[in-house]
């Protein structure tokens, strides 16, 4: 009886150990798998050629990624410009100025909305943001736009990353010791001076990490952006122009992928590039957050 129990324990232990390797393995396999599938196109064209070429004609074997990369950068930049100030201000307000009760209701509300699916944001974008840009914002600036634009993508994306940036920032602010604020107040500083010179300073690395995390999410976000950004293969020249971000490229062409030679390889290369960029920023942000937690101990 005893040995049966020990045997169970040992088997379970080996089994679990095997599975624990899984997560690390997945990261590795993803990079490897996508790379393998990208090799056909890399064999024909150098990476720099693909990244900087603007001509996208799959039927002719031309896979210039430049317009798509620019599209992604434009949309992410607009999203960042909107989200960063709003989220920072809100996080500071919720952390330093409102009463506990208000914070206790607002925080879950914001978190709840982190669960709303991408497509639903897309539907909302099509119903509200696109007409808003077409009928009000663009004319206000003296230009014309169909509404399906970088700006629409940026606005929708910004709202999608609000919850994560605010959530992580609130945690970081919360980890700044209360007594540090007291020390500043005791010297005669006002609440705002304390926030400006002490709290934000102490929380800065963590807040930056929160922003990086949010933006790397934005970078890879697919559906909602795809639905409002226009999907025109051209480098945008203004926020009112349509664009075609990388994730949208991958998602939109699932149909033709296998019928045109090298198409699937090009798209999987795109996925690989996207993955590596996101991995890089994620890892950097995580490392910063870990060291922030440790230093506050």
């Amino acid at each position, binding site marked *: 009886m005893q040995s049966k129990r020990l045997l169970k324990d040992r088997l379970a232990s080996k089994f*679990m150990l095997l599975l624990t390797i899984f997560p690390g393995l997945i990261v590795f396999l993803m990079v490897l798998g996508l790379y393998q599938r990208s090799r056909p196109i890399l064999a024909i064209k150098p990476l720099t050629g693909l990244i900087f070429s603007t001509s996208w004609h799959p039927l002719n074997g031309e896979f210039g990624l430049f317009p798509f990369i620019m599209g992604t950068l434009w949309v992410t930049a607009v999203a960042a410009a909107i989200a960063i100030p709003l989220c920072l201000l809100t996080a500071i307000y919720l952390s330093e100025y409102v009463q506990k009760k208000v914070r206790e209701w607002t925080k879950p509300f*914001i978190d709840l909305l982190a669960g709303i699916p991408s*497509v639903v944001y897309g539907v909302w974008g099509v119903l509200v943001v696109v007409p808003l840009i077409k009928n009000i914002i663009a004319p206000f600036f003296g230009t014309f736009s169909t509404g399906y634009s970088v700006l629409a993508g940026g606005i929708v994306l910004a709202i999608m990353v609000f919850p994560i940036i605010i959530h992580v920032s609130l945690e970081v602010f919360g980890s700044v010791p209360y007594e540090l604020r007291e020390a500043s107040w005791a010297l005669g500083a006002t609440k705002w001076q304390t926030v400006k010179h002490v709290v934000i300073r102490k929380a800065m690395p963590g807040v930056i990490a929160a922003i990086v995390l949010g933006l790397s999410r934005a970078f890879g976000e697919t559906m909602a952006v795809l639905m409002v950004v226009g999907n025109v293969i051209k480098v945008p020249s203004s926020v009112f122009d349509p664009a075609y971000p990388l994730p949208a490229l991958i998602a939109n062409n699932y149909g033709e992928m296998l019928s045109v030679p090298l198409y699937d390889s090009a798209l999987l290369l795109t996925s690989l590039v996207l993955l590596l960029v996101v991995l890089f920023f994620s890892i950097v942000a995580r490392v910063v957050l870990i060291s922030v937690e440790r230093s506050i101990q």
Partner: protein
Amino acid sequence: MDRRKIEESIFKWLMFTSTLIIIFSLVLILATVIVKGMPALNGAMITQTPKGGYYLGREGGVLNAIVGSLYLAGGATFLAVLISLPVVLYLNVYARRGSRLVAFTRFSLDVLWGVPSIIYGAFGFTIMLFFGLRASLLGGIIAVSLLILPIMSRAMDEVVRMVPEELLQASYALGTTRFETALKVVVRQTLPGILTAILIAFGRGIGDAASVILTAGFTDNIPYSLFRPVATLPLAIFFQLGTPFPEVQQRAYASALILTVVILIISMVSRILTRRFTKHIVK
């Protein structure tokens, strides 16, 4: 002196306005979905599959997508549990605290958590090519289970981590093996938290479109085989919205409402469970 006050007032006003903007935009999204979706919502939507092709038909509903999503998300959640639970138990009961494997695995899970769903779709696609699979329920399940694995693991890990070391040692002192302790003590103590983690992951899996667009295909039918394409709610919404027919677009709004309601219910239930659960923890 006055400059200080002015600066403080300006920022206070800015902060308050930002918070309002954020809350307002989130409320606006919910309101739009409800207002547009309610009129189109009727019994037929939930109980019938699309008739006459989902592009052209004006009748029928999205039963194909509802059932398809449930099967797909359910299958993916099941697969994810099979991996998450042993891994989390290993990290917290078996492995030595502070071992490098533990740190590395947790870090990998954190990193995987941030990978966009389209990449999981692309990777799932690579796997499917490797095994000669076509767009199908199974393909979708593979992609989505990879997507929700880090989410589920992280949520489970946070809960299981809170089990105090002393409780484990009390169990060992009675002569139990680690396996028995893991099952009978840890899982029992953290069961609500584990269920919550599963719920959260399920919610994420059912709402995601980018991971299934490359791997699951689409169909008008209720799924009957693992190897045939399957319809999902997110994609149903996407396709319906993209048609030029207003009646079909209406159905998109209703589908969006259904999906949102399902996810909000899951979120709220898991939040309530978490709160209930953390009240009774043995510390």
